């Protein structure tokens, strides 16, 4: 493992239902510190499963997952990563502040420390002033920001995100994309980001991993060489459109066997 390799997935396969369903087949992936890696692909390609394997929320049938030089299980127990789901998964019975403080409570932080960190985090996601609100009083976008604040509260070096903005409208999504990049720069963490959206993947990432289904595997990896920091102007850069097209083509090639119709419609 090279010095700053953060995630290493080697020869990983995952089968469900007593071997009847192969979600992932022989996956090899290496992620370096500070990267923003997107996993993109159609339904059934295993991207969410791969994310969960990295987070030790499920175990590989074959192969190994190494995180920060340790086993995925050890990394989970050591709280090396924070995770954000498509649903904000906030507890209705806790205020925003208490929701963000949840992992800190579980880690045994003292009350004063928690309060301070919560304040810091909420400021980071631009929700200061909402400490005493309840989740149902917030919009979807605000809830996701709380979820991100919670994931980062204990300063993990890795952030795992499973289509976090999937349930939001386009405008909110674009705005949160910019905010996420800002947070990423500020914290210097490594992000593994699962998404359905090509535009989002290209805008956010340093690398896009294109996956294809049946069985789930990595079809292609597209490095994104757009300038940092990315802004609204980036979305109008010709290079951006080129990269979007490249990713789209990689997706089609990957699922070529299954969806020849898509190509025909494209033409």
């Amino acid at each position: 493992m090279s010095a700053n390799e953060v995630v290493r997935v080697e020869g990983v396969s995952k089968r469900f239902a007593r071997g009847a369903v192969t979600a992932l087949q022989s996956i090899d992936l290496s992620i370096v510190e500070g990267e923003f890696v997107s996993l993109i692909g159609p339904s059934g390609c295993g991207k969410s499963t791969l994310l969960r394997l990295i987070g030790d929320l499920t175990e590989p049938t074959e192969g190994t997952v190494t995180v920060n030089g340790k086993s995925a299980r050890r990394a989970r127990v050591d709280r090396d990563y924070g995770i954000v789901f498509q649903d904000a998964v906030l507890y209705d019975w806790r205020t925003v502040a208490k929701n963000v403080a949840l992992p800190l409570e579980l880690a045994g932080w003292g009350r004063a420390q928690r309060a301070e960190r919560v304040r810091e985090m909420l400021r980071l996601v631009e929700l200061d002033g909402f400490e005493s609100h309840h989740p149902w009083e917030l919009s979807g976008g605000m809830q996701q920001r709380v979820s991100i604040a919670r994931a980062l509260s204990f300063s993990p070096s890795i952030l795992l995100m499973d289509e976090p903005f999937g349930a939001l409208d386009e405008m909110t999504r674009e705005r949160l994309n910019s905010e996420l990049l800002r947070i990423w720069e500020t914290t210097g963490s490594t992000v593994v980001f699962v998404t359905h959206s090509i535009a989002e993947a290209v805008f956010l990432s340093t690398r896009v991993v294109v996956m294809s289904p049946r069985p789930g595997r990595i079809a292609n990896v597209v490095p994104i060489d757009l300038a940092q920091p990315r802004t609204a102007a980036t979305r109008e850069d010709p290079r951006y459109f080129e990269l979007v097209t490249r990713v789209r083509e990689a997706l089609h090639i990957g699922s070529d066997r299954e969806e020849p119709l898509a190509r025909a419609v494209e033409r």
Partner: protein
Amino acid sequence: MVDEPIPVEVIPRGGLGRSVGRRLRDWIPAAAVLVLGLVIWQEAIRVFHIQRFLLPKPTSIASQFWDDRSNLWHAGWFTFQEALGGFALGSAIAILFALVLARYRFFGTALMPYAIAANAIPIIAFAPITNQWFSGGITKSSKIVIAAVLCFFPVLVNTLRGLTSVNPRALELMESYAAGQVQIFRRVRIPNALPFVFSGLKVAAVLSMIGAVVGEYFGGAFNALGVLILDRARTFQFTAAWAGVFLACLFGIALYAGVAILERLTLRWAPSTSE
């Protein structure tokens, strides 16, 4: 939406069949508990010398039950008729009420606090009064009324919930077809409500038998099950009393099972039945 199955185990929810399991194998723990329970009961009485008249052995109850079966059966049948009558009456009125309240929402909001208050009233306390209404309680009618009132609320609440918890999109769809209220009820609300109705009917089935037996305490025909059980308890024939209790249980379970079977037949098209 997650594409792949989430590997975290989701505990099945739903009816008894769902939580216990359809396979015969899943019922083994329940059977084991039954056998274990009976054995402990039998042995504890022997070991602790628990007096027979307080807690008879299961075997004695079983033999008593068998010996006395025709007496018990007639008494049980009599009481069961009261329960059944109350069940039918209370449920029917409750469903009608629910239909009206679902159609004219205003009455629902107006009556809500009273419904909640009425639900908090110990209905059984009215048993002496209903006895007065119907020739001193010798006939079945007074217990039928008690059982009916007990059945009314669970069926009303559940049916109403079923009629009103319709997906707004489904309603919008019907309105886009310019469907009238009657149509909406027939095609959307009522089918949606059926699982809820059966949920309520199952609760009512159990309550009706309890209502009939308990109502008989305040006065009933001499050949009614509740009167019989109490009579034997008072004269310290506890084995015979327990045998009567056992029969009351059986009738209650039978009514519940009847409703469950009816539910299974009616809701064959539904993907799941609620508890």
